[in-house]
């Protein structure tokens, strides 16, 4: 059995997820096709075997969340928290993603072809996010590690209270958050952007991107700052 199909109009979501968790690793299933997702929450969460899941339609909250080894492709849009807390593997949204995409991700690659909502990559702890469109306000808030490539624009307070994550933005930035600053693109940055665009299957000139990283002035308490940053 190499390929399985689940029509969520006929089959409860729990059957799909329990198949992915219990049966797929044992039976060596390589591909699972999900039809009529109809906005259901928690589709293909917590994948722990190298399975390729295709979702045809719009997914609800937390699709592909906690992914470890799987590949999840959503041929539609994704609701709040797509690929949240992903550890490794790959999640690809062909449409747009709602708020909190890739929240708290530790590893892996999240690709969003369309726009992402607010707080994309909030508390990013590792891994990579590539957004073909624009991201909403407060994206990469307190992002600790990992990389984000934004091919469109960024909303307000991009990278507020950034730690060591690095952001690359091709379009305009409405405003930077506290302690985030634009830095010059080095050779290593150009190579990183090219590598991530290639991985996402997107074609842009890496030279068109700006680098946003932490000024690290919030790392130490400054009693003279008087709460103004």
């Amino acid at each position, binding site marked *: 059995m190499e390929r399985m199909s689940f029509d969520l109009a006929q089959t409860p979501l729990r059957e799909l997820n329990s198949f992915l968790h219990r049966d797929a690793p044992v039976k060596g299933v390589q591909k699972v096709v999900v039809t*009529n997702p*109809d*906005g*259901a929450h928690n589709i293909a969460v917590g994948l722990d075997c190298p399975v390729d899941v295709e979702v045809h*339609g*719009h997914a*609800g*909250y937390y699709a592909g969340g906690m992914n470890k080894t799987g590949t999840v492709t959503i041929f539609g*849009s994704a*609701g*709040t928290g797509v690929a949240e807390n992903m550890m490794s593997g790959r999640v690809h949204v062909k*449409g*747009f993603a*709602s*708020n909190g995409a890739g929240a708290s991700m530790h590893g892996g690659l999240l690709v969003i072809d369309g726009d992402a*909502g*607010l707080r994309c990559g909030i508390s990013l702890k590792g891994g990579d996010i590539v957004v073909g469109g624009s991201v*909403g*306000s*407060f994206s990469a808030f307190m992002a600790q590690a990992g990389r984000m490539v934004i091919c469109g624009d960024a909303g307000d307070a991009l990278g507020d209270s950034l730690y060591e994550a690095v952001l690359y933005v091709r379009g305009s930035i409405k405003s930077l958050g506290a302690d985030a600053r634009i830095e010059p693109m080095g050779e290593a940055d150009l190579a990183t952007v090219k590598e991530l665009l290639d991985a996402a299957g997107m074609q842009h000139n890496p030279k068109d991107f700006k680098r946003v990283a932490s000024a690290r002035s919030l790392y130490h308490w400054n009693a003279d700052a008087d709460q103004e940053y």
Partner: protein
Amino acid sequence: MCGIVGLLVKKPALRPRLGELMVPMLIGMTERGPDSAGLAVFTEPLAENARKISLYSGMCEEGADFNWLGLGHELKEHLGIDAMITSQGNHAILTAAIAPEPVKRWIKERHPKLHILSTGRAIDLYKDIGTPAEVATRYAFSGLAGSHLVGHTRMATESAVTPDRAHPFTAGEDFCLVHNGSLSNPYGVRRMLEPHGIRFETDNDTEAACRFLEWRLREGDDLESALQKGFEALDGFYTFLMGTADKLALIRDPFACKPAVVAETDDYVAIASEFRSLAHLPDIKHATVFEPAPEEMYVWNA
């Protein structure tokens, strides 16, 4: 948490099917709002001098056994009004060629526990406690006809679970609002409105937003200006969906804390908190689906 739904049909031929298309949308939001549900439907407007008043008797002692026929006789006897009353258990729509204020005053004096749900030339309003499926069956929502409607499923956080605190809220005529979220300054807004003679019926935060926006419209603002003032005056988390006699309008707070998704085809515009309430709609696979941006106004004409 709460669920909001809205539906506007673009073709007159679809108007008789408005309720039937909406009921699965409302039921789809049960997990977001299992304790109460309601909707306001906008129909072909009555003549200039006529009004309809939606009434709810569930908080009277008689409940669903309220004597609606008797109410009609009393209105004739006391005010000389020939009213048509269409009742369904604890709900009735009173239609007459009247100035509504004296009738509403009379109802409040004579039947203080009879709750006035809405007034206008186009709006009919229903709301009650119970699951969305129970409320939809209780009032036969699937048979409703009209050009557009606004619906809500409630999971109460800011005030008690009672029929009058369910949504939609209404103020003035042919205006209603549903809310997903919670306001942080409803008492400030109330204190600002009360000196203008605006009275509140509940302690619910949404009622403050509803009465604020209706007050702006009554003061002469168009819908867009009223909503702009709403962005400035109302603080907290909100996705608001509003209905007027000929429009649906949607706004989200600047942090987009509460969800919304829109699907549009040549036949309809449908709005819901989540896509799962839109998934059953006809031709949804070819609809334009998008997430409305924070602090933007979306207005659709019926």
